[in-house]
């Protein structure tokens, strides 16, 4: 018998600090698989800004940079411009990318920086214990929207993939989820395309993961998956929003 599924080589064999059932772990694994399969571990540099995944650097056996909250795309720009033949990716939450880091991601996308952004949208600030994120759904209760997000007061949630797809700059934008095995496979394909977009020098790529936060949603992991499917996916449709033009 041979092993048909196991830990990606590039991931360290350690316990991760994420809560039970948190999708961060699945997304980490997918990155690991793609990096392994593309054979780019020795020239890949990851960037972990602040969020539950700030400790991601402990899990990847890759050169890593911890970045200030929201600034990962700027840090990635600095690295990529200094070392254009390396593969650079950021791993950012929705607080990080869609709140404080809005300008940085929009401009990295506009400039067509040859970086790959992994965007984990769990509709909440996980690390700081459950405040509203820009992506929090209308009606969703958080510690700073105790009566639920009110569209009148807080506005409607930000759809980052759609917003960035409206720009000329980005080459590849997709939204995926990992809440079923089938979606996991699809997500991996998209992630691979994103990295390939960078490897083929076609421009900026981003994959938005619609993710969960059982802890701060106050749901069991299984319930969180159901809630994600029934609520998140309605507002955040999955799909590819932008594909790189064929290089002439």
């Amino acid at each position: 018998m041979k092993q048909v599924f196991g830990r990606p080589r590039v991931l360290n064999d350690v316990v991760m600090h994420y809560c039970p059932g948190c999708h961060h772990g699945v997304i980490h694994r997918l990155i690991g698989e793609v990096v392994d399969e593309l054979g780019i571990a020795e020239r890949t540099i990851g960037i972990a800004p602040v969020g539950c995944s700030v400790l991601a650097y402990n899990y990847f056996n890759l050169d890593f940079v911890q970045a200030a909250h929201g600034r990962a795309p700027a840090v990635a720009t600095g690295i990529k411009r200094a070392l254009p033949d390396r593969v650079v990716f950021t791993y950012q939450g929705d607080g990080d990318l869609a709140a404080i880091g809005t300008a940085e991601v929009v401009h990295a996308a506009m400039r067509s920086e040859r970086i790959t952004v992994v965007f984990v949208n769990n509709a909440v600030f996980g690390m700081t214990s459950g405040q509203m994120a820009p992506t929090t759904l209308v009606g969703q209760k958080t510690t700073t929207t105790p009566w639920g997000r009110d569209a009148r007061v807080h506005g409607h949630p930000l759809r980052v993939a759609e917003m960035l797809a409206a720009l000329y700059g980005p080459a590849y934008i997709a939204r995926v989820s990992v809440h079923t095995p089938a979606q996991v496979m699809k997500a991996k394909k998209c992630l691979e395309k994103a990295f390939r977009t960078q490897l083929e020098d076609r421009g900026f790529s981003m994959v938005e993961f619609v993710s969960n936060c059982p802890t701060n949603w106050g749901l069991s992991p299984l319930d969180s998956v159901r809630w994600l499917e029934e609520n998140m996916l309605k507002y955040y449709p999955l799909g590819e929003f932008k594909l790189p033009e064929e290089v002439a």
Partner: protein
Amino acid sequence: MTREFLLAGFGGQGVMSLGMVLTYAGMLEGRQVSWMPSYGPEQRGGTANCSVIISTEPIGCPVVTEPDVLVAMNPPSWERFCGAVRPGGLAVVNSSMVKVSRAREDIRLTQIPATSLAEGLGNLRMANMVVLGALVGLTGVVGMDSVKKALDKVFPGREHLVAANRAALDKGLAWVTGGAAAGAAG
């Protein structure tokens, strides 16, 4: 006179409210008091703890690192803090969950099957109040009356909870004072 408590357990075991009721009781008795939770990502690990200080003098640092009294509701708490108890201090251990292996000679140790006792009362979540009842008996730092009054402060408007808590307090007290009170409560 200053008494420093460190109360530790799993997230759901109610050590925070245990501490809060104790603190309020001290306040009601005119003492200086403080309550201080551990905070930050260590919460994510599952264990939680809080420091309580009850004193006749102004309170310095509210973080208790060398408790006079340790309450350990679960094994990791005991592992982590048993060494920190001040020589001559007291450790109250939830013996329903914690098997005390290494014993320390220089501290008092009370093992109370708080979870089982609470189960007996029909509510596992009352284990914290069972321990608090025991603390009243063991330390005398606050009176049972004050503790019961404090309950109203911590759970305002939740009558049924208060009643159940009172029963648990009595049970804990009875357990350490030798069953008389327990009988009375039963």
